[in-house]
């Protein structure tokens, strides 16, 4: 076919790069309350549309509207707000600590606090999350001690992971928080395996897998969907679409699909898309998915639409690849401000109480930090013994490791 036109190569590009003026006016944001809430056992084919919309509860005036509203009391919402505020202040302190050389590395959640904080409250004790590095909200909202998190970040003597792991790669079994891997996506299929195990055991506990938009390109994302779909595993498969994967915009991973939620359609898995900056919507959708899992109806895929307002990590400066003010232009707003506005609107909260809460939380975080720093930071204070380096490779130390530890003199 020599008369065919030459092929050309297509590389998706974000619309905006440094220097451009942020503009999200072309992004269609459905009105809060406008997306229906199907029964949990409705056939996945019948709810295809939910993967192409955005489930939202909080409207512009801060009112909770529509069929997804009403899953939480005001008291619970105030607690949720405090969790998000805590996470933000925690992040803030740790970003600074990293700059001060107290740790090697940190990753914050700025702009995404609602996702993990609200999700956590839809789970029951005993359920297990398989998180990535950006779900510390699960720990905060689950009441895990902040000083313990900081000890991990500082790799000090009280680090529950004995200094072995990169900062923020927590593990907290009793808090339903699986050990975070540095390798992307591996946890997604593990979550499915855990859920399969629960079903095999005739248990009632369910699992939740977590993955970022960029990481959905990894193979284990596919493995997870294949296994979840095949064995109808009681698992919630969460995609946190914060628009960016380090310097790469979501279009590189999503390709020509309308949304990440659509990935579920190839597997007959009910797939929902939700406003990730809306604490109430996240919670309601998580509850819905958890009920499906617990009623043995199988997996649910959820895409949380949010925005990574900060850098990817302390090693990253996003101004090199996106407009500086892009995050402010982000049309779904800030999760903390939105929930605050809602609670003020309902009368359960006020600016004064907010300011006061902020001060209280800051004090708590600082107290936790002091406690952790009393023990040590990466380069100061007390650290796990180098002996620890040789422990836990196996349950029992084999002769060759004993020999090596001996060589070190520890």
């Amino acid at each position: 076919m020599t008369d065919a036109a030459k092929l050309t190569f297509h590389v998706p590009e974000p619309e905006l790069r440094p220097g451009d003026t942020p503009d999200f006016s072309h992004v269609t944001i459905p009105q809060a309350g406008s997306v229906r809430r199907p029964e949990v056992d409705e056939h996945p084919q019948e709810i295809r549309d939910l993967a192409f919309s955005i489930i939202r509860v909080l409207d512009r005036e801060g009112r909770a509207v529509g069929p997804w509203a009403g899953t939480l009391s005001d008291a619970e919402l105030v607690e949720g707000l405090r969790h998000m505020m805590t996470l933000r202040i925690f992040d803030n302190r740790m970003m600074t600590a990293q700059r001060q050389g107290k740790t090697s590395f940190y990753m914050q959640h700025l702009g995404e606090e609602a996702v993990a904080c609200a999700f956590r409250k839809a789970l029951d004790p005993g359920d297990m999350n398989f998180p990535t590095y950006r779900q510390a909200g699960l720990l905060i909202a689950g009441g895990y001690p902040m000083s313990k998190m900081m000890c991990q970040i500082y790799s000090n003597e009280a680090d529950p992971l004995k200094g072995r792991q990169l900062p923020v790669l927590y593990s907290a079994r009793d808090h339903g928080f699986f050990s975070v891997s540095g390798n992307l996506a591996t946890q997604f299929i593990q979550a499915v395996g855990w859920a399969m195990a629960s079903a095999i055991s005739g248990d009632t506990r369910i699992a939740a897998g977590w993955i970022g938009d960029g990481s959905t390109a990894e193979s284990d994302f596919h493995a997870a969907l294949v296994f979840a779909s095949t064995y109808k595993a009681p698992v919630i498969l969460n995609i946190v679409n914060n628009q960016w994967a380090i310097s790469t915009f979501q279009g590189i991973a999503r390709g020509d699909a309308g949304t990440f939620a659509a990935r579920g359609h190839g597997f007959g898995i009910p797939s929902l898309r939700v406003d990730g900056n809306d604490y109430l919507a996240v919670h309601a959708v998580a509850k819905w998915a958890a009920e499906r899992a617990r009623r043995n109806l199988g997996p649910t895929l959820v895409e949380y639409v949010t925005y990574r307002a900060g850098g990817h990590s302390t090693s990253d400066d996003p101004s090199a690849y996106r407009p500086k003010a892009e995050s402010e232009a982000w049309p779904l707003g800030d999760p903390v401000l939105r929930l605050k506005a809602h609670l003020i609107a309902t009368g359960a909260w006020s600016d004064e109480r907010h300011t006061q809460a902020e001060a209280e939380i800051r004090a708590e975080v600082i107290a936790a930090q002091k406690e952790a720093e009393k023990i040590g930071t990466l380069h100061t204070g007390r650290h796990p013994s180098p002996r620890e380096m040789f422990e836990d490779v196996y349950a029992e130390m084999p002769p060759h490791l004993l020999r090596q530890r001996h060589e070190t003199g520890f």
Partner: protein
Amino acid sequence: MPKCRRTSCASATRRGSDMARMTMVEAIRDAHDVAMGRDDKVVVFGEDVGYFGGVFRCTAGLQAKYGPSRCFDAPISESGIVGAAVGMAAYGLKPCVEIQFADYMYPAYDQIVSEAARLRYRSAGEFTCPIVIRMPTGGGIFGGQTHSQSPEALFTHVAGLKTVVPSNPQDAKGLLLAAIDDPDPVIFLEPKRLYNGPFDGHHDRPVESWKTSPLSEVEEGWCPIPLGRANVVREGGDLTVLAYGTMVHVALAAVAESGTDAEVIDLRTLIPLDVDAIVASVRRTGRCLIVHEATLTSGFGAELAALVQRNCFWHLEAPVLRVAGWDTPYPHAQEWHYFPGPARIVENIRAVMEA
């Protein structure tokens, strides 16, 4: 086999009525059965493993006996199989999964290396990964480059894994029971050429069956063989031959043909390695030959040679030699030129003896 000494799951006192003759396939099946019967937490899955019982039949009958929740077919996704197993282990089950051929473990390599092997370490013991990953390994069946590989060195380099290679039905059962019982991930490499009979490398002679070998006497019930202990399968003073899997049989044949009084050690477990047994033998014989099917360069023989020269330097009377697969993919038609058969081993025994 003169001067043959064996330690196995069949302890002297229990010999007799509670022994059965099995092929290696039957012994592996029996180990599964015993482990599943003893512990509800043991689940078995893999490609074609459930209804059909595995392409080599190692799991035949298990689904019928224990139901599809305990033994089931998996999608063709090695990373999915191992990844799901890691999650199940984190839950508290003890998955024993099959990779259809060792040659197909690569898609699962990330889950094995980055996840299974490091989970206990990275979580400081909060989560553990007691899984067994079985896979048929090695050549000798005209399987070409994707049904013949011996990737053990790709596991022995990974801290956190144990690696086991049985050479007969007795060991296969006992070691598999120990592997399933082990609190850590174990790679269990099954020399497929030994599934139905021993093989001494003389491919032009009639096929042997396990039925006539004393090594097919397998103890019934729960009879684990501890990981980490080598087995001196032939005592001798002239030189020490280190081998595992199929090559144990080939080495024994070669030793007999060479007329040397070699000590032959079946390593059985590569990690943790029974260094003491190796060192004691080589210090006594002063000479060492290493045999494996895997490609030579960076094969497990390299580690063995490095350890032996390090620990037996002053006792060595000749360089440690290695006989191994050539540094090429495993070819189809040239199988018997590739396979380190008795002739090549005899030649190298001579070289070690004459050095």
